């Protein structure tokens, strides 16, 4: 970036305040993004990031703002349509695309919006959408239905749509939350390319490693207040986490040896054709066993077999010393297994039901009275026990799950499984989409559960997480366990190299 460019700003906000009810969502916050810069907006869930973005594009009007300036021009009142016309685009986490429309139509959709009837020129639409994809250097079939695309490709379509509107400032909300490492790298390449073209990108991500890799500067917001603006050069993940949460995030290897602990689960030569083969390992009581590797290495499939959701083609499993071969997930639960799935939002919780009903769903049988009906007293006793134990922040236990933040939802999933009193807990990517503070909270719980003798299989592709939580690490690649590491004998970069090499 030349000095002349560095002086130009895509966005300047000075002393912007916004309150909802009694909650001060933004308190005299300053936020500046230079033209063509990759800027990261960091903060915990609920710190005001989304409010800030929505204020920039005029979804919310601030109560007080000393200055709002877009591309060097002062803006008084703005609305989403006007913001788009000025060249500001927001790519929300859910992408806001149309699954049953074609790629071309998704990219060019904003041209169609409006009530003045006019005819649709498909040929021109396809040509223009193709030009944008060429500019991004990606090859996606323009005639394909969006629903046939992988998430990573949809992400690219969303970016193309922003560029179609001649965006010069693009906000990206958690763009990499559901991408694999390779896909993330490809996305980051596109972000760099756009930045080189003079498009400013504001990146919102919970993955701090990524933030430090891609962004030039980072603005940290906490509880609606500006903490500060920092260059990413010389910044560490630990320091950034500390700035975001306001307290130190312990990031140290806590691995222990458990020589006397009995084996809870053992797999021998476990094979499922096309997914994984010859998997042998054991987990002891109180042990946190990390299982890492690239997405597609067969980790989730292995977990499914352990839970009886799929059947292995060969090999044995033993649980508490006895042979174990669950025909379905109910048998696995009865045997003492628990599984917190990767996709908690769609698979792990009933979003519209209450917190208490979600908590007790897997143990309804234990709560029945002699008449076979659910006992409300027992139910509320169980629910309040786990809410207290796990420190879930809730209004009332009868509130819908969807009212909770990601981190708290994750805790309810945990509560639901812990209520079954398991011997082995499988955690599959437990912190996807969970912010750094809540993440620390979840791992504090995991630790204390392990201390109490619960065996835990932690599946994750976040290397730092695996390093700092596990007692032992298994590395899975191409459906096989390729190596076992002791976290005390290896460093994060070394492990990263092993996995991504």
């Amino acid at each position, binding site marked *: 970036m030349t000095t002349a460019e560095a002086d130009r700003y895509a966005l300047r906000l000075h002393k912007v305040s916004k309150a909802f009810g009694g909650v001060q969502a933004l308190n005299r916050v300053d936020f500046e993004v230079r033209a063509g810069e990759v800027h990261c907006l960091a903060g915990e869930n609920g710190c005001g990031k989304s409010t800030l973005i929505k204020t920039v594009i005029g979804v919310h009007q601030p109560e007080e703002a000393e200055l709002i300036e877009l591309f060097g021009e002062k803006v008084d009142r703005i609305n*989403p*349509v006007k913001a*788009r016309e000025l060249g500001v685009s927001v790519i*929300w986490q*859910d*992408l*806001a*695309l*149309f*699954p*049953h*429309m*074609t790629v071309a*139509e998704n990219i060019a*959709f*904003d*041209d*169609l*919006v*409006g*009530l*003045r*009837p*006019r*005819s*649709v020129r498909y040929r021109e639409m396809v040509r223009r959408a193709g030009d944008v994809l060429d500019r991004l250097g990606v090859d996606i*079939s323009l*005639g*394909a*239905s969006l629903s*046939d695309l992988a998430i990573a490709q949809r992400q690219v379509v969303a970016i193309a749509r922003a560029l179609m509107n001649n965006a010069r400032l693009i906000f990206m909300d958690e763009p990499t939350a559901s991408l694999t490492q390779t896909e993330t790298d490809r996305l980051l390449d596109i972000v760099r390319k756009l930045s080189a073209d003079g498009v400013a990108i504001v990146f919102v991500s919970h993955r701090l490693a990524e933030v430090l890799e891609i962004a030039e500067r980072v603005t940290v917001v906490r509880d609606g207040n500006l903490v500060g603006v920092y260059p990413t050069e010389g910044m560490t993940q630990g320091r950034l986490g500390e700035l975001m949460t306001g307290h130190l995030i312990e990031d140290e290897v806590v691995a222990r040896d458990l020589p006397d602990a009995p084996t809870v689960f053992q797999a021998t030569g476990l094979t499922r054709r096309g997914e994984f083969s010859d998997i042998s390992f054991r987990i002891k009581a109180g042990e946190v066993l990390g299982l890492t590797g690239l997405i597609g290495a067969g980790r989730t499939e292995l977990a499914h077999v352990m839970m009886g959701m799929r059947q292995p083609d060969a090999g044995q499993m033993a649980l508490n010393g006895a042979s174990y071969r669950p025909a379905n997930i109910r048998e696995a639960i009865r045997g003492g297994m628990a599984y917190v799935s990767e996709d908690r939002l769609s698979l792990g919780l009933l979003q519209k039901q209450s917190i208490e009903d979600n908590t007790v769903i897997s143990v309804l049988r234990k709560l029945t009275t002699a008449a076979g009906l659910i006992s409300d007293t027992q139910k509320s006793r169980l629910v309040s026990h786990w809410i207290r134990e796990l420190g879930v922040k809730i209004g009332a236990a009868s509130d819908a799950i969807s009212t909770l933040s990601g981190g708290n939802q994750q805790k309810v999933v945990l509560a639901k499984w812990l209520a079954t009193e398991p011997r082995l807990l499988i955690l599959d990517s437990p912190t996807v989409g969970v912010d750094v503070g809540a993440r620390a909270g979840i791992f504090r719980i995991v630790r204390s559960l392990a201390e109490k003798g619960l065996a835990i299989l932690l599946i994750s592709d976040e290397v730092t997480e695996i390093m700092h939580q596990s007692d032992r690490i298994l590395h899975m690649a191409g459906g096989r366990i390729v190596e076992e590491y002791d976290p005390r004998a290896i460093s994060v970069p070394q492990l990263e190299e092993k996995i991504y090499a």
Partner: protein
Amino acid sequence: MRDAFRRYTIELRLGVVLVVICALLSVAAPQFATLPNATSLLNNSAVNLIWAVGLLVVLIAGGIDISFAVASSVVQYLAAKLLIGIGGGNWLLGFLFCGSLGILLGLLNAWLIHGFRIISIVVTIATFNAFFGLLMFFSGGRNIYNLPDWWTARIFIFEHENAQGVWSELTLPVAVMIGCIVATWVLIKRTNIGRQLYAFGDNPEGARRAGVNIAVMQGVAFGWMGLMAGIAGLMQVNLVKEVVPNALYGRELDVLAAVVLGGARLGGGKGTILGCILGVMFVAVTQNGLNLLGVSPFAFQMIIGAAILVAISTSNIDLSQFFRNKEASS
């Protein structure tokens, strides 16, 4: 090319099934593949198809309408009273009255849905009952026979006499039906309004964020349905030459079934004119064929039910998956 194939799987499949059924029926029932049978099939399907394209627009926009057939009856009755009251009128006034009355009833649905945030199935079940109740109450269930001559006159757009002296003819409703199909196709496929309807049905929140005017979209969808219901009511009188208040009651589910059979997605964002036509014709041909074969009408109901189950459950089986696997292994 493969993209196009994937996008039109349902239409393609239904087309093949329809051709097979037609071929089988031509062999089994000699009267089936004759010009007189084909033309009467079209004449009798005209009203259903007019409704179907209207309903298609509502389904695409993510709604559902149960009230349209009864709305047609209401429009018929009111238009007959009005036209007789002003001394007869003519086709122009007939279209004007029926069209605008239909639109009004459609907009009433849209207003209830959007204004009070009630889901469309609940609103239209309510209006279905309200429309029908009001109609029966005020009409006393009495038919109207003394309609203006222009309305009940047969207007032929095609005539042909074969060697045996049997006439084949297509009447005005078929021409109007073609007009409605073309107009609906232009609306949903060729205009930005139509594409916004698809988007709204596909992802309402995404559409709202993109700046699509949701209230107007509901109005367009249900207004269009109302317009089609009005026109269908007008045409149905032309076919049967009387206004019978409860004649159309119950037809809505047949049409809904046919449109869903044609690939329109309950839940919005998906559906084509071609599929809609094929769906209606599939139902019509099956009914006609079974009739010619002398099969009980109850068997027909059963077969349509089975066809819907098969169509819905097999649409989850992705044919293109099969082709992709073949490509991968070769």
